[in-house]
């Protein structure tokens, strides 16, 4: 569809046209099956997302044996819940404490634990976050509404290799009576990256 490719096309923005042309070429040449592209989109739009990580965290909060396994071998512990694969091949869980808050970044690209959090949000991939969080994390966290006491140290984990980090936020006060499903509702994506905390009990 060459008329769809021209930058001056009236109906498509340049990237819409560019990607459509590329997919058409690759399909015509037998390199890509559009049905596989559909399936990939469906996977990351509907099946893999932060609800996975929230289940892992809620289980760690309620099951000390699982929490211990998660500390020692996060890859295996997370795999036991069915979350494996691309951009989660090698996992480490990092537990927040009152003494140390942890936050994850990839200063060199956008490495992110897809198996437990899904696709990264735009801000995580942005030059602003990647440049700033290693030099002024307190200022960055404050922009997310998270102000930590000065007595709490901050550790920034720069994902420079193929290890992917899942932050286990602190369990909210007053959540003792909740089961794992109810607790998972309190676990936000930001709390598992470290730019937020788990939701407080209303």
């Amino acid at each position, binding site marked *: 569809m060459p008329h769809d490719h021209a930058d001056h096309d009236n109906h498509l923005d340049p990237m819409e046209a560019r990607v459509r042309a590329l997919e058409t070429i690759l399909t*015509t040449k037998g390199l890509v099956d559009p049905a596989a592209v559909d399936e990939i989109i469906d996977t990351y739009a509907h099946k893999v997302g932060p609800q996975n990580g929230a289940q892992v965290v809620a289980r760690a909060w309620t099951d000390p044996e699982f929490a211990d396994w998660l500390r020692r071998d996060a890859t295996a512990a997370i795999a036991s819940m069915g979350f494996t694969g691309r951009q989660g091949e090698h996992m480490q869980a990092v537990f927040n404490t009152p003494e140390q808050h942890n936050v994850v970044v990839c200063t060199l690209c956008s490495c992110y634990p897809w198996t437990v959090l899904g696709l990264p949000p735009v801000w995580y991939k942005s030059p602003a976050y990647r*440049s700033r969080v290693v030099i002024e*994390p307190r200022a960055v966290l404050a922009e997310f509404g998270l102000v930590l006491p000065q007595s709490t140290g*901050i550790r920034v984990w720069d994902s420079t290799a193929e290890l992917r980090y899942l932050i286990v936020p602190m369990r909210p006060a007053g959540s003792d009576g909740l089961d794992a499903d109810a607790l998972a509702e309190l676990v936000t994506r930001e709390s598992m990256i470290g730019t937020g905390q788990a939701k407080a009990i209303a």
Partner: protein
Amino acid sequence: MNGPHDLGGRMGFGVIAPEPNEPWFHAAWEGRALGVVLACGPLGRWTLDESRHARETLHPALYYGTSYYEIWTRALEALLLRHGLVTERELASGEAEPADPDPRRLAAANVAGVLARGGPTDRAIDAPAKFAPGDRVRAKQMHPKTHTRMPRYLTGHYGVIEVDRGGYVLPDTNAHGLGEHPQRLYTVVFDGADVWGEGAEPGLTISADLWEGYLEHI
């Protein structure tokens, strides 16, 4: 390489501005771009390291001026051209001669399995560890013109080995088709006050996962 991607500690990019209830894709083409990039991986013509290098060698104006899915798209075009899978003429015209499916073309039925398997990069290595947890090390002063995962803001700084992760594929060679050459990988912890000096935020530590060849004894 000291490319536009190496962002730790750079300034001037403004506020972070997270978007409430952000959608997975901001336009339909972003989803197609993600899908096409992931579908091309199993063709086996390049490695993840090479695709990262293709992104970081885009012109800085393009790298900073576009969305991440455009960066992915542009880098995929560069990889397809480099490996002879498409031609400039095809990209310019949007037309190609029909061909039989590549034997490695990803079928829709195999997507779930391929994504669930991923591509582990840990490798057994025989060489004894050069460093042990607790060792003080220095991140070597190095500025290769080729791909590396040593971030510039840590080069030359002192850190402490926290964990020996075992052998992993070395991106520095793998990105250039020069083989996996696995090396031991370490999680190294740096003190924010050492890395940033005067004015550093108090109570800051930074860790990075660094290959043995990036480090030296002190």
